[in-house]
């Protein structure tokens, strides 16, 4: 009996759960540090609900890790349709409520279905690429149906309006078709078309006020002047951390309330201020280890569906992390995209848990059934 448990533990892949826990630990300490002073606004207890969300997400991850990966393939389209339905529901309810709506409220729980939509998209694409000429290199024509699979939810979240998530779906899609051996010729052509039409649109197609509107459209909740201010405060926070940072709980930018949303979109800035360049190197290595481990898994599984699925899951988290870090440090304009496991937020964490569960399940199936 004991032997079996030892055997089981030896074969069970803890690397993803371990990675998740390590990043979460850094994240929750950082969250506590950046919000502990906010007794007035009631944010100082956020870290507690973040811990609650982590426990839930880790439990979900472990539960999913025991599911046979073939099940994911069987229910791939179902998952896609299901999440699509939720997004549609939010859209309809938002229209009824006469305003933008991203949340679905079920009793005491507020969900952001567009978070789960990313997983739905990845599942559906993985299934499609596995079934239809899996060996073929993708050309223009082969992109029509996958393009529709991606396009429908993208249009729906964009009219929510949530352009940030819409762009994310596009990026995730791009990385997946790249993995599915999109022809270099097509990549170059697509790149050229995108570049030229973008430049043409911007220079001739748009009037001055429309150009301005694009900036605000990226995130309608942030006015242009406001976001310019946030970006500068964010840079001051990061830069003032220098090599070693100001130390735990010592972020003056956060404590002075200069940085808005310092518990969601700007956590990375606070982390940089308190732990400096070396702290960030450490944190980025944690993320990189997680992503590399996923890519390695994707190239060493026996089933092609599993491989594409893992790449898809990896892209979700990669794009989130990269865009958030780039935006906070001033490389990209400010869009409201959270940093996985670091930013406060339940839906995002739960998505991460599901991803980790799927990866673990796929990894275990190699070890257990070999």
């Amino acid at each position, binding site marked *: 009996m004991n032997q079996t448990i030892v055997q089981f533990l030896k074969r069970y892949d803890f690397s993803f759960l371990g990675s998740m826990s390590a990043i979460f630990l850094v994240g929750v300490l950082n969250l506590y540090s950046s919000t502990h002073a906010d007794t007035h606004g009631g944010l100082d207890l956020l870290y507690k609900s973040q811990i609650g969300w982590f426990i839930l997400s880790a439990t979900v991850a472990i539960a999913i890790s025991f599911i046979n990966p073939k099940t994911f393939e069987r229910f791939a389209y179902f998952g896609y349709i299901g999440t699509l339905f939720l997004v549609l529901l939010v859209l309809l309810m938002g229209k009824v409520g006469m305003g933008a709506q991203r949340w679905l409220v079920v009793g005491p729980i507020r969900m952001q279905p567009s978070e789960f939509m990313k997983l739905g998209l990845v599942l559906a694409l993985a299934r499609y690429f596995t079934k239809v000429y899996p060996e073929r290199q993708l050309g223009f024509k082969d992109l029509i149906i996958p393009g529709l699979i991606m396009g429908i939810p993208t249009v729906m979240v964009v009219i929510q309006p949530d352009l940030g998530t819409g762009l994310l779906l596009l990026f995730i899609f791009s990385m997946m078709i790249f993995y599915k051996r999109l022809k270099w010729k097509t990549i170059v052509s697509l790149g050229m078309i995108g570049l030229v039409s973008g430049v043409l649109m911007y220079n001739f197609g748009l009037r001055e006020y429309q150009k301005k509107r694009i900036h605000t459209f990226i995130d309608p909740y942030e006015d242009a002047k406001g976001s310019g201010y946030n970006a500068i405060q964010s840079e001051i926070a990061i*830069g003032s951390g*220098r*090599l070693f940072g100001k130390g735990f709980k010592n972020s003056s930018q956060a404590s002075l309330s200069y940085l808005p949303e310092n518990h969601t979109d700007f956590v990375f800035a606070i982390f940089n201020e308190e732990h400096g360049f070396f702290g960030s190197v450490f944190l*980025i290595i944690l993320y990189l280890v997680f992503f590399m481990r996923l890519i390695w898994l*994707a190239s060493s599984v026996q089933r092609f569906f599993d491989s594409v699925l893992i790449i898809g899951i990896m892209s979700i988290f990669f794009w989130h992390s990269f865009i958030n*870090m780039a935006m906070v440090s001033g490389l990209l304009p400010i869009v409201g995209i959270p940093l996985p496991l670091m930013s406060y937020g339940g839906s995002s964490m739960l998505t991460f848990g599901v991803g980790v569960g799927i990866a673990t399940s796929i990894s275990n199936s190699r070890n257990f059934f070999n």
Partner: protein
Amino acid sequence: MFGEEELVKIHKERATLISYIITAAFGLVLARLWYLQVYKGETLHNYSIQNRLRKEVVWAPRGLIYSRDDQLLVDNIPRFDAILTPQFLLDKEETLAKLAKILQTDVASIEAIIKKNSNQARYRPFIIKKNISFGELAQIETQNADLPGISVDTFISREYRDKEIGAHLLGYISEISQVQLPKLRERDKTEYRLGDFIGQFGIEEQLDKYLRGENGHEFVEVDARGRRKRYINTDNLFKGIEDEKPLSGMNVKLTIDRDMQIAAYKALEGKVGGVIAVDIDSGEVLTMVSRPSFDPSQFSRGLTPEYWRSLVGNKEHPLRDRNIQEHFSPGSTFKAFSAIAAFEQGEIDEHTEIHCNGTFRLGRKVYHCWKKGGHGPVNLIKAIRESCNVYFQKTANRMDIDDISKYAKAFGLGSRTGISLPREVSGLIPTKEWKKKRYGQEWQAGETLSIAIGQSYVLASTIQMAISYAAIANGGKIYRPFVVKDIYDSEGELVKTFTPELLSEVQMKNPKTLKFVREGLFQVVNNPKGTAFYRRGQGILMAGKTGTSQVKSASADKIYQRCENMDYESRHHGLFVGFAPYDNPKIAAAVIVEHGCHGSSAATPVAEAVITQYMKKYQPEIYLKNLDKDKEIKDSWIRSLRASQPAEPSDE
């Protein structure tokens, strides 16, 4: 065909490429961080330590409120608070000693305030002294360098020029509380913040979205001690940051007349109650005053606990509005509608005579007239004039309650008038169906008798009574009462104007009905036997009806007990509703005086004062003419009554 494993294998190249892309992407982020943290690290570090850019809210000036005669009722006045930020407080003892000297207080009391606020974050400023004088302001500003951590907060205080007069109408503004915040955000779909001011009562609440304006912001550079240094405009780092000017709130012109408000307030001196007056041909509310009252300015400055206790602890509830947020038994003022119903239904005409011997027996119950011994033979005009209960009870006994209710409702009673002010009560006009629903019981015949004289279930507010009597005066037109005439933007451009809204018109079957009811109401005030004759005033030719609303139903032996001898809480409410001038009605007014005992002595003088003020100011020619008419009427009564005994300044 490829096997599954071959498929994975042929994609390995792309997987490797993806891992390069990811590494490069994070490499880019790290390079950027290196640039910010190492290359520009010193500069940015200095910014965060020494120079702080603070985004400060620039409050939008709230719109002003004017009366119909263009007098400023509500104004904004700058006030100053001395504030302290613990984080920047260096040389605590020395600073506090200096501060105590300026503010003419002692260090211990300042320490006490600091201690009270010690549980909040050290960077949050708090108020040391509210509303400091210009002298104190000047001293703090000039000694700025010696007072680290101390600064002055300017804010715009909302000042209500006539203080307690009309406070319930104008309302007040106060800070949004933690409890209100989520509710208000949901209600208005606006991102309010804690500490934002919002109208919480009256006009301030109702017109908040017009009055509020939009706050702007400015960027201020503050030094490490939190003191303002200079405005940002030169530094490259702060390029692209712009201030935003606030958008002033809109100014509002009311239908209310300030002089009438003052007259009403004075007339209610020493009384607990309310008066409301409306323009008969439009529904414009001219006066709306309730006493006891409160000073709304106190709310915008942040209530002191003492003031709050004095309001909440007051048994007479100064925060309660007696005109639209409370309803009462209308007592005999309701008889006008009993009369209209009976006349229209053909139960009575102007000649119908009913004998009143002081009591009316129905089954085992005896109903008393207020006049011991009775009024003798009574016709409609006498019944109204002398407020004979038996006349109305005997008439009502032959009628269906729903027929009486029908007419009362047609005149606007029993439902909200729709005045554009928050929390209006609906009053109550009972019907058989209502009783069945409410109590699950059948209507009792005796109950009709109580309703006919305005007691028991029937409830009405002064605004409802004023509007319904206005309809009696204008031939049945029910207007929606309104208090706002025009809204102007801060440039003076007219944004919105409110016009009279005719809600319905009562169709009278019998053209004589209103004529005789009006004649009765006229005699109430202008006939020596009328219940309000001794309070009739001069030059206003008022018509109206007094009323007494029983607070507790009196047992038979106490029915004729003098009201003034009862304990205060048990005394009747006194009411008066009327309109003027009788022959060319312009204004209707309704008055309630809680525990005032008599409508005539307590309530009528209030209406008289308000109406007199109105006539003098708005109808001076008619007023002068009516002074003569008044004299004629008086002389003729004196002549004809010289021999006979005048009525007592009576009850009812």
